[in-house]
Structure formats: structure tokens, C-alpha cells
């Protein structure tokens, strides 16, 4: 189990980001130290080396111009001159005899360029350690002239650098690793929260939501968006579940009645009884067929297969026709229908479907306005869009149900006994959606107001 876990950790983005962070941190620390070393140690050494080279050249020319004695005198004088940096030298003839020196030792082979060597001075019985930068000149007769200056201060700095950089890098690395772990853990925790929630939702717990940290950071924003998405999914899953439950119920009921009728028919005695049962069975079959047709029709409209029938529709005439079709129904209920339909309303659409939608809405209005109720049909253009309003003076629909009445088979509990398939508004909604319109169920105070905007 530990190997996959390790591999999983190595794959994890936060772990890799942590590693990259540590590497970057160390690299930048090294670069900083390099730059500091360059400025604080190496550059001063180079400057000192230039000075010592100039001195050596000058002394070598003294030897050439004025002879060995003058050189030795100059070296002595140089050694005694008080100054910021102590002067070191060694003059060794071709045979290896020391002619003059204040250096404890020097390299056996010739020094090329410049070099740092150890130079100890004895003063009042004590030994003082110095680091000396030396250059070498070979004189005319083969003698070696080694001259130098102490660079102890620079060397101290060098050592300080060496020690402190080692410590700083060590501490820095520890901090970086610790920091990256903490950061990785913090990010990982948030990601884990998302993963956990997603898995629980997948396992069927649709109500799970990703916890927010409350800081409103980008993780919160992500979690919020994902939560909204989960909400939408839950809603649609819920509505699909409700619809399929309803379909099962609405289809089973007439099927059961049909079954019962046929069963009774088998045992029925007398022509009259037979006819009654047959009629009843046919009516149930017709009801089943009507539900089935409406469901298919909605599915077909929703899948957009109806676009072929789109053409210019004279909505003013269509609304008048729909009102005329329903007028006997309105009169039979002793209702008053008022209409305010603007002239010349035209739109692109499928006239049969639009007529079906308007007819369904009028049907509902007549059904719910009640005996002696009032119905208002209004249509006008507003801001380039057509607005159709159909209001009744019935009991209205409670706000909680206004959205759900568009669902297949949904019925407001109080009207559950009313005739119909519960598919009328669902069909209207599908037709309106096909025409890219808006369907709104509102309050007519009192009553229901349905607004369709195309």
C-alpha cells in the first residue's frame, strides 16, 4: 500500500509545486549569495591583486634599473612603511638562497597570476596569522621576487560568507520545505474537500455541497460555482425523477382501469352492461392515447424537430381564432372574456404549435376562472418583442407552485381533481421554448396571469 501512496503523492500537483518551490527558493538563494560573494570578496581581491601587480612591476624595474641592493633597500623600506595592509615579500636567488624575506614560507614553484598564501608575522613574541595575496616576478638573473599584501579582512569576510551561507542555505531549505508542505497541505485540503464532495454526490448523495472557507478567495469562488452547478443538477435530477414517477402513475391509473373494465367485461351479463364497459374501456384507451400523444409531442418539440414548420405567423388573427374557438366554452361557463389585441402582430414560428399553446392557455383560463369569472387576453409589442397576457379571475397559483406547474403532470394540489392530463402547460412551455420565448406564471390579483413573450 505504501508504494502506490507514494506514487500518488509524487503525482499530486501540490507535492510537485512544493518541490519546484523549494528548488526555486534554493536556486535564488544561491544566486543571491553568489552575487554577494562577487561584490564583497572577489571584486576586492581583484582590486588588491591589481595593486600588488603594479607594485611588483615597479620593484622589478627597480632591480633592473638600480641593482639588487636598491631592490633590497626598497623591500625593507616597504616592509617598514606603516599602512592599512601589511607588506610581504621574499627575494630568492637562482640557487634558492633567501636574500630577503618576511614570509614564513612560499610556494616552491613559480606563482602565476596571483595566489593567496599563509603569511605569519611575529610581533613582540606573538604570531599573527595573515592571509596574503602574492604575485611573483622572475628577475634578470633568475632570482624570484615574491611580493604581497595582507588581505586578512577580505579573507575573514570570505570565511564568514562560507559559514553563514552554509547555515543560511540549510535554514532556508528547511523553511522552504516546511513552507511548501504547509502550502501544499492547505491547497490540498481545499482540493480534497472538493474531491470528497464530488465523490459523495456521485455515490448518490445529491444534497452534498462543498464547504466554503468564508474568505471569499478563489477556492471559495470555485466551490461556490461548483455548488451552484450541483444545485442545478440536483434540481433537474429531482424533476426527472418526479416526472418519471408521475408518468408511471398517470399511465398506470388508466391502464389499471382499462384492465378492470376488460376483466369485468369478460364476466358481464347482459348487452347493456357489456356496452357500458366497452365504452368505458374505449374511453380509458383514448385517455391513455391522449397522454401518450402529448408526451411524445412535448419530447418531439423539445428535441427541436419542429423547426421545419416555421413561417410568418399572423398572431393577431391567430389570437382572434383561438378566442373564437373557445367562445362557446366561455359562454357555457357564464364567463366574461375581454380582449385587447394589437393589430399587425407578426412573428416567425409554427402556427399550429402556437395555436395549440394559446388554446391550452385559454383552456386553463376557462377551467380555473370558474362560473361567472373573467378572462383577459391582451397582446402587444414592447421593445421589439411580442407580449401575450392571459389572465383569469380564478383562485390563482401559490408562488411556490408557479415554477413547477410547467412540469409534466404537475398539478397544484388544490386542483388535483380537475380534469386534464397535467400536460397542458408542459406543452405550452415546450412550444414557447422552441420559439425562444419566455413563459411566466404570475399573479393577476386575484387569479393567474400567464405571460408569454416572443
Amino acid at each position: 500500500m505504501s508504494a502506490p501512496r507514494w506514487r500518488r503523492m509524487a503525482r499530486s500537483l501540490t507535492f510537485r509545486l512544493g518541490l519546484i518551490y523549494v528548488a526555486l527558493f534554493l536556486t535564488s538563494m544561491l544566486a543571491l549569495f553568489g552575487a554577494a560573494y562577487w561584490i564583497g570578496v572577489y571584486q576586492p581581491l581583484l582590486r588588491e591583486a591589481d595593486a600588488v601587480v603594479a607594485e611588483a612591476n615597479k620593484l622589478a624595474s627597480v632591480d633592473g634599473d638600480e641593482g639588487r641592493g636598491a631592490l633590497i633597500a626598497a623591500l625593507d623600506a616597504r616592509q617598514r612603511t606603516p599602512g592599512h595592509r601589511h607588506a610581504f615579500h621574499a627575494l630568492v636567488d637562482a640557487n634558492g638562497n633567501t636574500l630577503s624575506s618576511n614570509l614564513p614560507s612560499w610556494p616552491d614553484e613559480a606563482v602565476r597570476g596571483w595566489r593567496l598564501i599563509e603569511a605569519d608575522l611575529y610581533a613582540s613574541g606573538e604570531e599573527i596569522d595573515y592571509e596574503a595575496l602574492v604575485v611573483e616576478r622572475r628577475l634578470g638573473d633568475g632570482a624570484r621576487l615574491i611580493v604581497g599584501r595582507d588581505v586578512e579582512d577580505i579573507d575573514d569576510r570570505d570565511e564568514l560568507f562560507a559559514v553563514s551561507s552554509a547555515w543560511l542555505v540549510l535554514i532556508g531549505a528547511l523553511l522552504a520545505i516546511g513552507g511548501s508542505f504547509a502550502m501544499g497541505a492547505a491547497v490540498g485540503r481545499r482540493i480534497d474537500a472538493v474531491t470528497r464532495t464530488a465523490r459523495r454526490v456521485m455515490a448518490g448523495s445529491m444534497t452534498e455541497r462543498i464547504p466554503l472557507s468564508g474568505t471569499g478567495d478563489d477556492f471559495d469562488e470555485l466551490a461556490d460555482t461548483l455548488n451552484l452547478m450541483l444545485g442545478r443538477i440536483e434540481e433537474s435530477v429531482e424533476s426527472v425523477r418526479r416526472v418519471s414517477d408521475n408518468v408511471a402513475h398517470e399511465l398506470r391509473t388508466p391502464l389499471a382501469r382499462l384492465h378492470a373494465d376488460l376483466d369485468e367485461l369478460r364476466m358481464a351479463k347482459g348487452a347493456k352492461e357489456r356496452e357500458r364497459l366497452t365504452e368505458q374501456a374505449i374511453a380509458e384507451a383514448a385517455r391513455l392515447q391522449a397522454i401518450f400523444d402529448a408526451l411524445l409531442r412535448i419530447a418531439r418539440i423539445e428535441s427541436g424537430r419542429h423547426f421545419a414548420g416555421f413561417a410568418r405567423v399572423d398572431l393577431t388573427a391567430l389570437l382572434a381564432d383561438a378566442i373564437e374557438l373557445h367562445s362557446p366554452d366561455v359562454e357555457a361557463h357564464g364567463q366574461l372574456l375581454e380582449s385587447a389585441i394589437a393589430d399587425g402582430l407578426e412573428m416567425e414560428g409554427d402556427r399550429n404549435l402556437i395555436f395549440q399553446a394559446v388554446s391550452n392557455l385559454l383552456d386553463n383560463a376557462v377551467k380555473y376562472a370558474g362560473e361567472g369569472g373573467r378572462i383577459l387576453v391582451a397582446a402587444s409589442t414592447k421593445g421589439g418583442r411580442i407580449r401575450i397576457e392571459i389572465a383569469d379571475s380564478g383562485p390563482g397559483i401559490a408562488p411556490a407552485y408557479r415554477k413547477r406547474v410547467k412540469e409534466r403532470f404537475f398539478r397544484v394540489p388544490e386542483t388535483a381533481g380537475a380534469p386534464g392530463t397535467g400536460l397542458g402547460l408542459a406543452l405550452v412551455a415546450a412550444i414557447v421554448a422552441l420559439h425562444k420565448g419566455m413563459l411566466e406564471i404570475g399573479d393577476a390579483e386575484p387569479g393567474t396571469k400567464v405571460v408569454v413573450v416572443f
Partner: protein
Amino acid sequence: MQILVIEDDARVAEHIGKGLKAAGHVVTQESDGRAGLLRAAADTFDLIIVDRMLPQVDGLTIVRTIRATGDATPILFLSALGEVDERVAGLRAGGDDYLTKPFAMSELLARVDVLARRGPAIVAETRLSVGDLDIDLLGQQVKRQGKPIDLTAREFRILVYLAQNEGRVVTRSMLLEHVWDYHFDPQTNIIDQHVSRLRQKVDKGYDTTLIHTVRGTGYMMRAGG
């Protein structure tokens, strides 16, 4: 009447055959598109009933082929594809009427009746009369026993369609298709209410009834009943 039925479902074909025979028709049946087409070409029929979805050759092709030969035999489509655009496709191919499965036998018989007896006479008619009712198609006026009856435009169209099919059953969906130019499914018995309003004006106060209800099916206009 000689009727050719091209239907591949044995149970439905048997049902149709029985119903038509019981109504006094002579029925020839074919169960696939190719055989149906050959039969339609070989013999003469008064009416052809064809399913839209058939093996070998589909219903639309059969009808197009029949019409391409100049044969004007009335054709009734029978199909499970009942959507408006499907019906339009069938009628464009040359069908005269379209019935959606499942259907009631009474509906099929009513349509068969209307289709088969639909003669050229209707085209030339300017006046119709049923019993003591007179309809002036040009002037859009209706009189019964010489007394004018005031009808709305829609009531007039319903009356004309019923009168044109005097003695034949007219179903609610036939009325919807011919009188209203919209193809849709009314949620309620809205057609009945229109017919009953028409009846109030045409039949009320007279000894004889002209517009009769055919139970479970539709209406029929008939003098002296």
C-alpha cells in the same frame, strides 16, 4: 366498394379488413410495399388505404408512384407518425387523407365514406340543401323553411361541411381539420360546443332535426330523422 389495404401488421390488417367488410366493402389486402404497389397498378380500386411504414417499399413512395402514373384513386394514409409535419409530408406525396394509429374503426369508416364518395360535384356547387334547409354558398346565407338563419363565419363552415357530407358520419377530428385550419389537439370537447351552438340556431324550434349526434364518433347531417 373495392378497397385495397396495404398494411404489414397482421393484427391491424385483420381488424381493418373485418371492419370494412362489415360495412359492405370488398377488401383486397397486401402486407408489403412491393406487392401492394404491383396490386395497385394491376387492378382498379375505388380507394387505397396505405400504411406509411412498410417493408420493401414505404408508403410515401407507393403513393408518389401511383400519382406519377396519373392514377387519381383516393388514398388514405394510415400511420403511427401522427405529427403535423408527417401528415403534411403524406398529403404532399399525394395522399388525400391521413389517419393516425391507433384509430377507432368508426373514424376509419367515416373517412373512407367521405373520401370514396367525394366526387367532382362539390367543386361546382353554389347551393346546398338538406331537407328544408338551404345554403347559398356564394352569398353565405342559410335559410330554413324560407326563414334566414344568422350564423357566424365558423358556424357557416361547419354547416357547409356537414351538408356536403350529408348522410355520412363526420368525426370531430375531421371537423377540426376541415373547418379550422389549425392542426392541434383540443384539450376539451370544444368542437362539440361549437356544433351544439350551431344546432341551437338550425334545429331549435323545428319539428325535424337535421344535425344528429353519432354516439362516440361524431355527427351526421340527414333530413327527416
